[in-house]
């Protein structure tokens, strides 16, 4: 173990670009051993998609060009809705966000609290989600390799990046419906909103607190409330401007 104490950061609602920029800033500083292991819990301020690091968005691009041509030739009254998406550092398929609580766990791969084996690490971290849901009165179970189920419905999933000696594990817990329809041109992971299963909407703040307690318990770490460091915010702003808001990153495949 490198750090006895982990940092808990609650950043509330931000847009997709900002959320991805913060995660990479923390990852870079983690690789330089300038921040402690961190769990960040957050949500999205508007419906959007995140797409996997190696995922192609070419079908989405051609669809957007077609919609633009239709708009220009037929002069419809409103521009077609533009789908907001951002490319993640983590693998897998796209994920729709909006009604979900998201979390990112960022830790050195040398930290022995998280197994280096990919499958084992998903399981270990997912038990934090399961414990968090239990504290909210929801019985859930791990479904290998990456999902958490309530009954037979996947309510949470995750993806990872392993770079510069650091693990970035990004997860999502579907509390409510995302507010946009699933985009057929973009293969996506399927989650079922908890609100549809338990008949009530869980408050974001309550869910965030329970998830934090779940990670404390399941990982056995001292998770101390903290904030993003100034150097982290500066780096995130730079990544936001130079990378995550740029088509050359988001549409690179």
């Amino acid at each position, binding site marked *: 173990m490198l750090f006895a104490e982990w940092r808990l950061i609650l950043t509330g609602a931000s847009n997709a670009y900002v959320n991805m920029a913060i995660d990479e800033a923390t990852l870079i500083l983690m690789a330089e051993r300038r921040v402690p292991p961190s769990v960040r819990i957050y949500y999205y301020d508007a419906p959007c998609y995140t797409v*996997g*690091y*190696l995922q192609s968005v070419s079908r989405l691009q051609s669809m957007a060009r077609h919609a633009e041509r239709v708009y220009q030739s037929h002069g419809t009254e409103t521009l077609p809705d533009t789908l907001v998406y951002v490319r993640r*550092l*983590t*693998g*897998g*398929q796209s994920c729709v966000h909006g009604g979900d609580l998201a979390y990112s766990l960022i830790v050195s*791969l*040398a*930290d*022995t*609290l*998280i*197994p*280096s*084996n*990919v*499958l084992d690490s*998903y399981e270990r971290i997912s038990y934090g989600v399961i414990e968090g849901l239990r504290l909210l009165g929801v019985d859930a179970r791990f479904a290998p*390799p*990456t999902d958490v189920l309530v009954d037979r419905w996947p309510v949470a999933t*995750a*993806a*990872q*990046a*392993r*770079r*510069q*000696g650091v693990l970035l594990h990004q997860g999502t817990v579907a509390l409510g419906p995302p507010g946009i329809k699933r985009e057929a041109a973009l293969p996506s992971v399927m989650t079922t909103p908890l609100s549809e299963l338990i008949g009530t909407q869980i408050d974001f703040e309550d869910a965030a607190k329970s998830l934090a307690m779940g990670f404390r318990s399941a990982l056995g770490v001292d998770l101390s409330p903290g904030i993003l460091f100034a150097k982290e915010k500066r780096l995130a702003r730079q990544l936001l401007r130079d990378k995550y808001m740029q088509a050359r990153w988001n549409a690179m495949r």
Partner: protein
Amino acid sequence: MVQYAKDRHYMTSHEWVKLEGDEAVAGISDFAQHELSDVVYVDLPGVGDVFAQGETMATVESVKAASDIYIPVSGEIIAVNERLSDAPQLVNEDSFGTGWLVRLRPSNPEQYDALLDADAYEKQCQEAVQQGGH
């Protein structure tokens, strides 16, 4: 049973490199492919790309995990394993053979000697398993 090929050297981050005359072949170790589980996609560099030792040369995706792969010695890429675009599972099935990633022309072959030999690398992996992490 994890294999440790004796005829090549290793990075602590689990890449191997094997010298073949003026050229070298590189890939990831059997231990690494076990840790990654089923490889579903390999993103390889372009022929002609030049890397310094330790730079990211490829990305391997397995179980929704995108993992960087580092180049064990500095040099220019002279070939990539085209079979992996249709058969990424070769990395799992034969990581020391048909699952190779790149062929390169080393610019500083002495770097090879400073890497771990198979015995030292095996010791590192066994210690990591005992500690429960890397």
